[in-house]
């Protein structure tokens, strides 16, 4: 294979695959656009398009669901989860990437389990415990619950980044008399900025989208956008369907902004393996 930038090759099997992909995306576009159209539509019964268009549903959704408050809560929860999970997870990732010690496999498995278990399994006992100690129903409970899968996630995504930093750089700094603190702050932290950004942004996207744990631990004042959306949709009949659509569009717009920001910093193909890119031309 030449190292030149090539165009998409098409074999017979290739055509079939692309046809399936296109079919999938045409239907997906239908799914998305039907919500978008509905959120701007007036009455829409048995026709191709609604009988008229309006933006009133967005105003309605904003007022009825106190969306400002909900968005503030969502951002606050996500920011706290990101900061705390990086502070707790990054040092652990450092130890796991650099050192061998007795019991390492056990520690590693324990950190991995929360990612391998469905959130509901540990979420229900966790919520019970958080209620017992008075955390659940408040912002603090939501943040604590969301940390459970986030800290392991930071550990998992940070480890390959740390492994890429040559340990000799640290040794050199130590030889020149730097203490652990300054090795961390002056040498490692700057080198690990890409890894920190990557895991932070991914945790942010995950937390904004995390339904189960927030749903189990949130009180009326500590709902995030996904949970508020779920309630507004499952309590069907009370709200106009279009204002739920409008709210879903707002949520997706917010996630889209986060994803675009994320993709600027994180090459999605380098999440689990260090990629040996073919040389650029």
């Amino acid at each position: 294979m030449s190292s030149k930038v090539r165009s998409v090759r098409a074999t017979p099997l290739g055509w079939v695959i692309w046809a399936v992909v296109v079919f999938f995306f045409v239907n997906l576009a239908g799914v998305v656009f039907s919500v978008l159209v509905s959120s701007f539509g007036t009455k829409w019964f048995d026709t191709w398009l609604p009988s008229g268009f309006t933006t009133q549903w967005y105003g309605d959704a904003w007022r009825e669901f106190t969306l400002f408050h909900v968005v503030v809560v969502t951002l606050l929860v996500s920011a706290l989860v990101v900061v705390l999970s990086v502070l707790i997870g990054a040092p652990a990732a450092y130890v796991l990437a650099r050192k061998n010690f007795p019991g390492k496999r056990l520690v590693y498995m324990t950190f991995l389990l929360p990612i391998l278990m469905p959130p509901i399994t540990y979420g229900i006992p966790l919520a019970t415990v958080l209620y017992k100690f008075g955390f659940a129903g408040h912002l603090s409970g939501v943040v604590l619950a969301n940390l459970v899968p986030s800290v392991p996630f930071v550990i998992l995504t940070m480890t390959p980044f740390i492994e890429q930093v040559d340990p000799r750089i640290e040794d050199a700094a130590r030889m020149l008399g730097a203490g652990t603190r300054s090795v961390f702050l002056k040498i490692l932290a700057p080198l690990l900025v890409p890894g920190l950004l990557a895991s932070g942004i991914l945790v942010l996207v995950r937390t904004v989208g995390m339904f189960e744990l927030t749903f189990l631990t949130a009180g009326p004042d500590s709902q995030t956008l996904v949970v508020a959306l779920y309630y507004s949709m499952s309590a069907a009949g009370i709200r106009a369907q279009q204002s739920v659509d409008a709210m879903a569009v707002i949520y997706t717009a917010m996630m889209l902004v986060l994803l675009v920001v994320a993709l600027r910093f994180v090459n999605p193909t380098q999440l689990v393996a260090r990629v040996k890119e073919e040389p650029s031309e």
Partner: protein
Amino acid sequence: MSATWQHRLAERGVDRRLWLLLPATIFVLLLFVYPFLYGLTLSFQPMDGGGLLANYDKFFSDAYQRDTIATTLKIALPAALLNVLAAVPIAFRLRGRFRGKRLLTTILVVPITLGTVLTAQGLLNYLGPTGWFNRLLLNLQIVDNPIRLTNNYWGVFFSLVITGFPFAFLLVLSYLSGIDPTLERAAATLGASRAQRFRRITLPLLAPGLATTFLLTFVLAFSVFPSAVLVGNPAGSTRVISLAAYQAAYEQYDYAYASAIAMVMGAVELVVVAVVLLWRSRLYTGSTGGKG
């Protein structure tokens, strides 16, 4: 004396830097291990009295509850399998460098942002009896009556494919990019055909990654809960086990019973994880050129 003792520990890797592990360890013990054990003991203390296993007995003797396990597996396994299998050929076409790669990858990943509710609303609008999909089929006279694709098994299945596929695709693409392309080139110079290269070189190297991807997608699909309610038939064909657990906890306020269901759910899930990991351990686990 104590100096040698410290020295010997340091040789085995125990030194002061291990303290960095402390916050994460305390955290995982307090917020994961303790609640889990708490839930486990609670599940053996039935609210209505009875023996240690009364909650488990109650769950397994009630067909309406017991069947949630099969229902969940029937939705989660095919959805996870389809997502992983569909991701392989697409990721295979998208590796390497070519024009428009970034755009294509972005388009494939964007569905991650949709969220359960927009997906659910969209499926109801689009695939519903008066939605665009059925309207088109009726107008083209492919069907006489609208086909039912929502508020049943298919609605939940589609929503799992929409939310799960981008995730599976991203993981498979990144495992695939981790395979050193020189290996395939070497095989090509030795005369291996395209199909042979895929079967003998790429697939074996990719298989462990596929197993991991399957597991993570399966975890997502197994805990399906909001979409089972919103686009499914939560009283019947899509009454999944997480719904049973939720109802026990927040509708009957029987946390002991809910914990028991959560434990059953965890056990079933771990059995699948164990089977996949066992199968994976029999595969090639060496370096894939990148970090395998």
